[in-house]
C-alpha cells in the first residue's frame, strides 16, 4: 500500500515536471522568443532571416549583420522608404514603420539577397 502511494506520488511529480518543462519551452518561453524575433531580421550566409516579416504599424524592425562580409538594407519601393549604410559584421540598422503596406528590400551589394516587411 505504502509502496503504491509512493509510486503514485512520484509519477504525479514527474507528470507535473514534464508539463512544466514542455510549457516552459514550447509555450510561455517560445511566445516571448517569438515576440523578440518578430522585429529582428538576421543577415547571415547571404540571406535575410526571416525573408518575410509581418509587423504592426508603429513597429521597429532591426536588421543585424551576422555575416562575415558587409551588407546593406535598401527598400525597393518607389518611395525608397529606408536605406541603411554599409553594415559590417555585428552592425545594426533599425527602421520604424509608420504606415501599413508591403515593403520589399534588398542588399545593394548583393542584389540576389531580398526580403520584405509586411506592415499591418
Amino acid at each position, binding site marked *: 500500500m505504502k509502496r503504491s502511494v509512493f509510486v503514485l506520488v512520484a509519477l504525479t511529480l514527474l507528470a507535473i515536471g514534464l508539463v512544466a518543462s514542455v510549457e516552459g519551452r514550447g509555450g510561455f518561453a517560445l511566445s516571448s522568443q517569438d515576440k523578440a524575433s518578430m522585429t529582428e531580421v538576421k543577415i547571415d550566409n547571404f540571406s535575410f532571416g526571416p525573408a518575410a516579416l509581418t509587423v504592426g504599424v508603429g513597429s521597429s524592425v532591426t536588421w543585424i549583420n551576422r555575416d562575415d562580409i558587409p551588407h546593406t538594407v535598401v527598400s525597393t519601393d518607389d518611395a525608397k522608404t529606408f536605406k541603411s549604410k554599409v553594415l559590417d559584421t555585428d552592425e545594426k540598422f533599425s527602421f520604424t514603420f509608420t504606415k501599413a503596406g508591403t515593403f520589399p528590400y534588398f542588399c545593394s*551589394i548583393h542584389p540576389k539577397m531580398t526580403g520584405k516587411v509586411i506592415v499591418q
Partner: protein
Amino acid sequence: MHPFDIKTVLFAKHAQHVVLIHFPIALFIIGVFFDFLAQWKKQPLLAAVAYYDLLVAAISTIPVVVTGIFAWQWELEGQRLKGVLLMLLAMGCLSSVLIWVVLLIHRKTQRKPEDVLPEYRLPIEAVAAAFVVVTGHLGGFLSGVNGPG
C-alpha cells in the same frame, strides 16, 4: 537576377562590374604566363601573344574601374568605405596601376623592335599577378563566390 540579363545589366548598376572584372584578371594572368613562357623558350611569337593579352587586359581595366566607382557612388552613395570594401578598392586601384606599368614596359620595347624586353619586368609581373589574384579573391569573397555563401 542574372548578370547576363539585359535588364540587370542596365539597371542593377554594379552588375556590370562583377561581369567585366573577369576580363583583366584572366587576360593579365594568362599574359604573364605567356611572357614567362616566352622568356624561357625564347619564342618571339609567345612574347607577341603576351603583349596583346597584356594590352587588352590593361584596356579592360578602364571600364572595370569606372563601373566599380559607379557602384560605389550609386549603390552606396559614395559613403566612406571600410573593411573588405576599402581593401577591394585599394587593391583594385593598385592592381590596375601595376597592369598598366607592365603594359608600358612591354609597349616601350614593342615600339623599338631592336630593344630587348628588360628582365626586371618579370618580378614586377609576378608581383602584379599576385596583387590581381588577391584582389580577385577579395572580390569573390565580397560577392559570395569565394565565401561561405
